[in-house]
């Protein structure tokens, strides 16, 4: 089957769970016969791909179904009969045209049907992203995630940043805090409390010419355990993607800042945003140790 080009406007649907996508399909089936095949096909493909990767029993066994079809349905006794009759077979050929799969001649959506589905999607996204303790506006929300990945949406520019600041000439940093200070970063974003036994492996600073971002990182290690602290100074646009598993993302408030805590198999990461800084701590330690490290950032 040829792969259909998809409207990028539908990509937000990837944020929804399979149950939520199924609910949209159910809405489509009961709300009339208006054509929105592009959207439906996109949803079907998302569900199908998810099931092919991680089956939950939603997909039929095609070979078995075909055998059953030949044995039970496509038999002479059924000639001219229908298990679920409709009266509109003759209308189908008038409606189905176009060359792509499921793509039929587009008809304008009815306003309420379009609004209904769009509103359902908006509601689902709102429910998926607004934290338990609420924001005054969803536009204040800056973290976006699915069950697979986490990332920050566009964050506000740091209006106080002096774009004419010269980068430091020396590359020797005594600590992560030292490196940040040398680049003129004064925000409290570095943990003051690293658990006993962890050794600092390096202070890594990289300037990216394309985006203008500067990345600072300090990994610590103790045996098989590690802690990696990363701070990225960006110009209002960040494109970091954090891997995460199916465990639910948690919110942790400290220093009046919301920290997102999520798991990636054996690791846990806290990510947060402060002005034009995107910060994270990834570790193999338990969540309570991570929270202690976060708390220490804001201790005076």
């Amino acid at each position: 089957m040829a792969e259909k080009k998809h409207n990028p406007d539908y990509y937000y649907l990837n944020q929804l769970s399979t149950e939520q996508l199924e609910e949209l399909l159910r809405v489509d089936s009961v709300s009339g016969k208006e054509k929105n095949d592009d959207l439906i096909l996109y949803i079907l493909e998302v569900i199908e791909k998810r099931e092919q990767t991680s089956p939950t029993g939603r997909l039929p066994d095609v070979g078995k179904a075909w055998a059953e079809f030949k044995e039970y349905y496509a038999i002479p006794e059924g000639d001219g009969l229908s298990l679920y009759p409709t009266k509109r077979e003759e209308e189908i050929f008038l409606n189905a045209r176009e060359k792509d799969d499921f793509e039929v001649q587009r008809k304008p959506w009815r306003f309420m049907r379009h609004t209904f589905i769009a509103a359902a999607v908006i509601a689902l996204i709102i429910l998926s992203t607004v934290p338990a303790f609420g924001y005054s506006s969803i536009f204040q929300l800056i973290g976006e995630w699915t069950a697979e990945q986490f990332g920050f949406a566009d964050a506000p520019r740091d209006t106080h940043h002096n774009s004419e600041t010269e980068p430091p000439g020396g590359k020797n940093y005594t600590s992560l805090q030292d490196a940040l200070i040398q680049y003129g970063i004064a925000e409290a974003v570095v943990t003051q409390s690293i658990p006993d036994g962890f050794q600092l492996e390096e202070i890594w600073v990289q300037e990216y010419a394309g985006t203008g971002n500067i990345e600072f990182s300090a990994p610590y290690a103790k045996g098989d355990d590690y802690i990696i602290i990363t701070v990225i100074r960006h110009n209002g646009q960040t494109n970091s993607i954090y891997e995460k598993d199916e465990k639910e993302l948690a919110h942790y408030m400290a220093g009046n800042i919301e920290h997102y805590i999520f798991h990636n198999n054996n690791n846990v990461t806290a990510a947060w945003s402060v002005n034009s800084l995107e910060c994270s701590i990834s570790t193999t330690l338990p969540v309570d140790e991570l929270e202690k490290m976060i708390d220490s950032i804001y201790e005076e």
Partner: protein
Amino acid sequence: MKKKSFLAIVLVIICSFSMVLPAFATSYVPFASDQISSYSISATAASGGKIAIDFSVTGAGKMSVIGAKSIAIYEKIGSRWEFAKSFSQGDSGMTKANAYIYGNTIYYNGVSGREYRVDVTVFAQDSTGASDSRSKSFAVTAI
């Protein structure tokens, strides 16, 4: 009409909450990664026809090799796309050994005004030899 449309949308959103509230749960198994903790990739036009390809990968621990696995650049000549240049993990500036994190900017000398497609794959390989990768593609017009 705008007020009516807005009211209709608000009413339907309110109704939608009652419809969707019980059905809020993820059910599919996501990907995650045992080698990659986070990554970022971008390709932007720089002056003089250059394309700047930034990449960064943070490993899920210390990795035996970490960085960019490949960068492939295609240019549009007329109506056709043609292969222009590729970088592989063995090229200078693409990877680092025995590291937790690595990133860099790789430049490609393009032609001003020409369209390019840039496919970037980053990866991390741990001490057992297991590796994972992530890819992104970009459309860039050189300036």
